């Protein structure tokens, strides 16, 4: 019955209650939607970083990460790749060489990280192959109804991910690097590097493909060549490996897999994507805290409004509360009634706000928010300018708990005011 009275009481002054509910609703929509945008951005960034850049886990010689010296290769990389690849949580393993080099075009030159890869194996670990601007993109861009009609010339003008048979040594570079070097597909570039014996060496490569991802810094600094070609240039044995890049079946397996690998290979450096790109790890771990922090601030602000409303409610009902206490309603029940009224008032607005926010998040989560006008800025930071807001159901659950907590806290002061009343005095008050 106290539940029913509390619920009915909040509708005694409809306009006032509606104003509070609308404030809570707007606060919830604003808080949840902006949280979903940030969460979506961060998750997208992490997914793309794993997909194109880091994979889930990388294994190196413990000294390799210090100076990236050529000599610090892994022992028995083939056996290791086989062992790790056969683990059920692992989707695939790619063996890579990784060397800092100078790359030059006729226009200019710059330093990049040159990755020596086995293209077929690398396809199973990272998706750079998918980011190479090729004839599929051309069809999409120019709207050819029948892909077969694309002329051979056009097809040849597009890049590939080491897909074309050619006598040239092939290199795949990022779009930013291509712009900087002023090169295009089929352009020649020269790569200078240090060999194992300390001498300078170099090779001429033709740009086989240009990849485009949402991280322009990565595009500018990482290029790919075939592993055997790089081994030959550096003087390392064919099959030498600096890095094992591991793609897992499921993101959730990361921690378990890390500890498994650390136990299995205690002498090697095992790094998760969070270690490789610590700023990303920090963002994802801190973002959750920050999102709750934002919600707490919003609820705190709303809480003061709710306290004010409930104080008005208590002051208006002094006589009624006096009567209730006089006829035998104890302090706990009076407190419970005021607390329930506050919870109902807050939660009604909260639930409506969460429902509307969920609809918005769902809609824009599918349709996306196009911020391509700011693409340059976003991509400079590694973010996709097409945002897909998303937020887990656990967040909504936590927000519900937070709203209830806010209401409980907000009800304390008005309830104490009510409990301090002397029933005899309260009954005498004329309102």
């Amino acid at each position, binding site marked *: 019955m106290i539940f029913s009275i509390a619920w009915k*009481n909040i509708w005694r002054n409809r306009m006032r209650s509606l104003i509070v509910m609308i404030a809570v609703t707007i606060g919830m929509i604003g808080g949840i939607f902006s949280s979903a945008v940030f969460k979506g951005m961060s998750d997208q960034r992490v997914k793309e970083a794993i997909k194109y850049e880091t994979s889930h886990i990388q294994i190196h010689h413990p000294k390799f990460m210090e100076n990236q010296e050529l000599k610090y290769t892994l022992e028995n990389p083939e056996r290791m790749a086989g062992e790790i690849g056969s683990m059920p949580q692992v989707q695939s393993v790619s063996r890579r060489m990784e060397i800092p080099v100078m790359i030059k075009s006729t226009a200019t030159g710059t330093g990049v990280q040159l990755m020596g890869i086995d293209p077929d194996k690398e396809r199973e670990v990272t998706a750079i192959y998918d980011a190479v601007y090729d004839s599929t993109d051309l069809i999409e861009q120019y709207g050819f109804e029948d892909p077969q009609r694309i002329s051979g010339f056009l097809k040849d003008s597009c890049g590939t991910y080491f897909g074309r048979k050619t006598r040239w040594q092939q290199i795949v570079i990022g779009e930013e690097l291509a712009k900087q070097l002023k090169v295009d597909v089929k352009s020649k570039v020269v790569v200078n590097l240090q060999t194992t014996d300390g001498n300078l060496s170099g090779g001429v490569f033709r740009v086989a493909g240009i990849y485009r991802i949402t991280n322009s810094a990565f595009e500018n600094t990482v290029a790919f060549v075939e592993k055997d070609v790089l081994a030959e240039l550096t003087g390392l044995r064919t099959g030498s490996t600096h890095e094992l890049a591991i793609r897992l079946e499921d993101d959730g397996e990361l921690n378990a897999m890390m500890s498994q690998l650390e136990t299995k290979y205690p002498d090697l450096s095992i790094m998760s994507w969070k270690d490789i790109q610590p700023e990303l790890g920090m963002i994802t771990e801190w973002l959750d805290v920050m999102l709750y922090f934002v919600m707490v601030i919003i609820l705190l602000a709303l809480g003061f409004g709710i306290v004010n409303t409930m104080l008005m409610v208590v002051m208006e009902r002094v006589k009624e509360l006096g009567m209730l206490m006089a006829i*035998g309603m104890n302090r706990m029940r009076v407190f419970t009634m005021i607390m329930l009224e506050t919870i109902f008032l807050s939660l009604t607005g909260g639930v409506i706000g969460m429902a509307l926010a969920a609809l918005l998040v769902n809609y824009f989560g599918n349709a996306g928010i196009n911020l391509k006008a700011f693409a340059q800025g976003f991509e400079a930071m590694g973010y996709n300018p097409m945002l897909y807001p998303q937020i887990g159901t656990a967040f909504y659950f936590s927000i519900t708990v937070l709203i209830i907590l806010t209401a409980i806290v907000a009800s304390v002061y008005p309830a104490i005011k009510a409990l301090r009343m002397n029933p005899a005095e309260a009954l005498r008050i004329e309102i």
Partner: protein
Amino acid sequence: MKILTLNNVHKIYEETEVKVHAVNGVNLDFEKGEFSAIVGPSGSGKTTLLNMIGGLDQPTEGEIIINSTNIGELKPSKLIDFRMYNIGFVFQAYNLIPVLTAKENVEFIMHLQGRPKKEREERAEELLKAVGLGDRMDSRPSKLSGGQQQRVAVARALASKPKFVLADEPTANLDSKSTENLLDIMEKLNSDEQMTFIFSTHDSRVVKKAHRVINIEDGKVDSDEIQKRN
């Protein structure tokens, strides 16, 4: 049977600069089944006395014994429960819960007592019929006249099966017809169910109906007379 005793009850207000002796050494006994009026002009101390009898206020000195319990010795939480089970209240301004229907208002105190729903409903209906509101059970207070609201308040006061009902100027806001009607109902409940009623009033119509009239003047009992029943 004696159900209520006041022994040398004093109430002194010292909050203001002037010390006010609102109740000054009152000694009274009330028997079960009484229909008594405490009468006196404004400021005579009758409401203060009624509040102390109802346990809403504590005497500065003296004791109030209800059914062998000295209510001054009860802890606040026990006193609230004691009030709920032993004393029915009827207030001048009705003080019904506006969001509940007449029946729910009567049921409410039984809900606080933890009585089962079926019992609550049956007793609420029975009491509302007894006060002549059998056809207005589902009406909210705002849809009832002053007299009807006060009758609901009487039904509510009786719902908890109290030892006695305290009514603080119950007819102050009622017209003469409603007053007559309310007094008839309370008198009938008094004679049929032996329910004890103690009023504070300065309404001559109530005084006329009362079986015992206690006059209070300056916080003291000025006279205490039994009236002949009509």
